[in-house]
């Protein structure tokens, strides 16, 4: 097991005196000092508005901005020219829905969305469907939580124009069969929008090898600050798409009555960028690579296995989504029999354990599972076997607090 807790001062001081057992990493991760130092150094030494000044400091800020882009693009296997900076996955997904969806979809076209999608890869497509007359279709998992080839073959049709799926569901935690989806989608001429928010922190993602058309991710779920994320878009698609937001720095020339756009990716980056956030994201990727994917995946898989085994021994726990520790990434969603997940989360909090409870921005999936809400434990590289033990032990007291037999 790797030990990186020294890099995360926040973990030393929990809310109730005990060290923090932070198991809400699917919502956002904590930030290591290496990332915080990189951001601080940028603001102490290199801060100016990129692409705008001719003085040396502005050039330095421009270099930092573009170097960060190249660094971040490399992490997901993209070219720098294909990486648009956004605030987060949601903005990246909205960019594609509005710029691609609204302009290239027509009445009768089909948008295929997985029922397990986070609202951010679902609601924008609902709006596109309403405005274009395209039809929203859903993919459903089988009884074990898997998205099967048979389901893909049934739903991907000659009318399908967009397939929008997450690489890892933020509730079920299972890895989506992206290769099969891409092959089948491309065969009918549809584009694939991959939401990588929950996958990029836990597994190497290579957008070129996956052959997806768009991919979105958030920095704050992989040890970087909030407010920075990215969109990968295939070069020819980005070229053909009109701007999303418009204004400063996304133009090549503006006349009184018209404007011409800058080349992608700058065409999609109106206004002053979050360069500090980009620096933090690049530093977070350096940090992850310094630990190494092999060590990260082995560590997180061991935690996942320990947790799944422990939960299996508690008869009052229901885990959602099947799959072994190897088929899952990052998250385990569950319920305690006869106890609402919010009460579970409050009781665990009293033991210093932070888990998420609610609908996880995936209400259609909750409806499909026939539950209103669930609790979710999610892992990061700094979690330990001891964290899992504390979590499992705390779960044993939940029903007793609620006046039920344990």
């Amino acid at each position: 097991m790797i030990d990186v807790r020294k890099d995360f001062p926040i973990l030393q001081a929990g809310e109730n005196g005990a060290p923090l057992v932070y198991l809400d990493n699917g919502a956002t991760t904590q930030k290591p000092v290496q990332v915080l130092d990189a951001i601080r150094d940028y603001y102490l030494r290199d801060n100016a508005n990129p692409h705008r000044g001719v003085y040396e400091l502005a050039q330095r800020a421009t270099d930092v901005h573009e170097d960060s882009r190249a660094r971040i693009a490399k992490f997901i296997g993209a070219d720098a020219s294909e990486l648009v900076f956004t605030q987060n996955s949601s903005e990246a997904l909205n960019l594609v829905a509005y710029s691609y969806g609204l302009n290239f979809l027509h009445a009768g076209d089909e948008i295929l969305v997985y029922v397990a999608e986070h609202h951010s890869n679902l609601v924008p497509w609902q709006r596109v469907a309403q405005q274009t007359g395209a039809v929203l279709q859903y993919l459903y998992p089988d009884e074990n939580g898997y998205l099967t080839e048979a389901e893909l073959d049934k739903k991907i049709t000659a009318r399908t124009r967009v397939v929008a799926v997450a690489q890892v569901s933020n509730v079920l935690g299972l890895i989506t069969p992206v290769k099969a989806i891409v092959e089948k989608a491309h065969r009918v001429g549809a584009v694939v929008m991959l939401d990588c928010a929950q996958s990029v922190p836990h597994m190497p993602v290579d957008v070129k090898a996956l052959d997806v058309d768009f991919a979105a991710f958030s920095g704050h779920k992989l040890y970087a600050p909030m407010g920075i994320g990215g969109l990968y878009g295939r070069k020819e698609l980005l070229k053909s798409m009109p701007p999303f937001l418009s204004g400063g720095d996304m133009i090549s020339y503006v006349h009184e009555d018209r404007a011409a756009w800058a080349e992608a990716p700058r065409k999609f980056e109106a206004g002053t960028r979050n360069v500090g956030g980009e620096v933090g994201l690049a530093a977070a990727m350096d940090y992850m690579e310094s630990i190494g994917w092999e060590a990260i995946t082995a560590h997180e898989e061991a935690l996942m296995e320990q947790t799944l085994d422990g939960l299996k021994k508690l008869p009052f726990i229901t885990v959602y989504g099947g799959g072994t520790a190897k088929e899952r990434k990052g998250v385990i969603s569950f319920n305690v029999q006869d106890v609402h997940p919010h009460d579970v989360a409050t009781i665990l909090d009293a033991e210093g354990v932070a888990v998420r409870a609610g609908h996880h921005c995936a209400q259609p999936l909750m409806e499909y599972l026939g539950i209103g809400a669930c609790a979710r434990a999610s892992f990061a590289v700094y979690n330990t076997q001891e964290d899992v033990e504390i979590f499992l032990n705390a779960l044993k007291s939940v029903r007793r607090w609620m006046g039920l037999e344990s």
Partner: protein
Amino acid sequence: MNLKDLYSQIITENSRNSAHRHEVEGATHTLEGVNPSCGDDIILSLRVEDGVVADGGFTGSGCAISQASASLMLDLVIGRELDTAKHLCDIFLRMITGEVTDEELEELEDAAALQGISKIPARVKCAVLSWHTLEELLD
């Protein structure tokens, strides 16, 4: 936070075995309240006769706090005049924000068991869902 104050017997029992968890025959007022951040919902129904809450009930789903709160609220307001119900609503909501006198707390009877929620901001929304729904319903 002390879990004992939060999950007292009054709260856990009311959350599970509420006498008011039912639809109301001849309801004159019905309103759904939702908590968008967690998906909890409550459908609150009242039968008002001659300016008095003759009967009330709730359906829907939610956590122990929201369910117990709805149950204790109906315990309190059934049989009361509408103005009194509004007055009690006002006291309860002020209790949650910590602006309430001891005399007012007594008026809330068992619903005062939810006072501890004022110290757990993350759960305030659960406690006030049914009361806000009632407030809106009576307006």
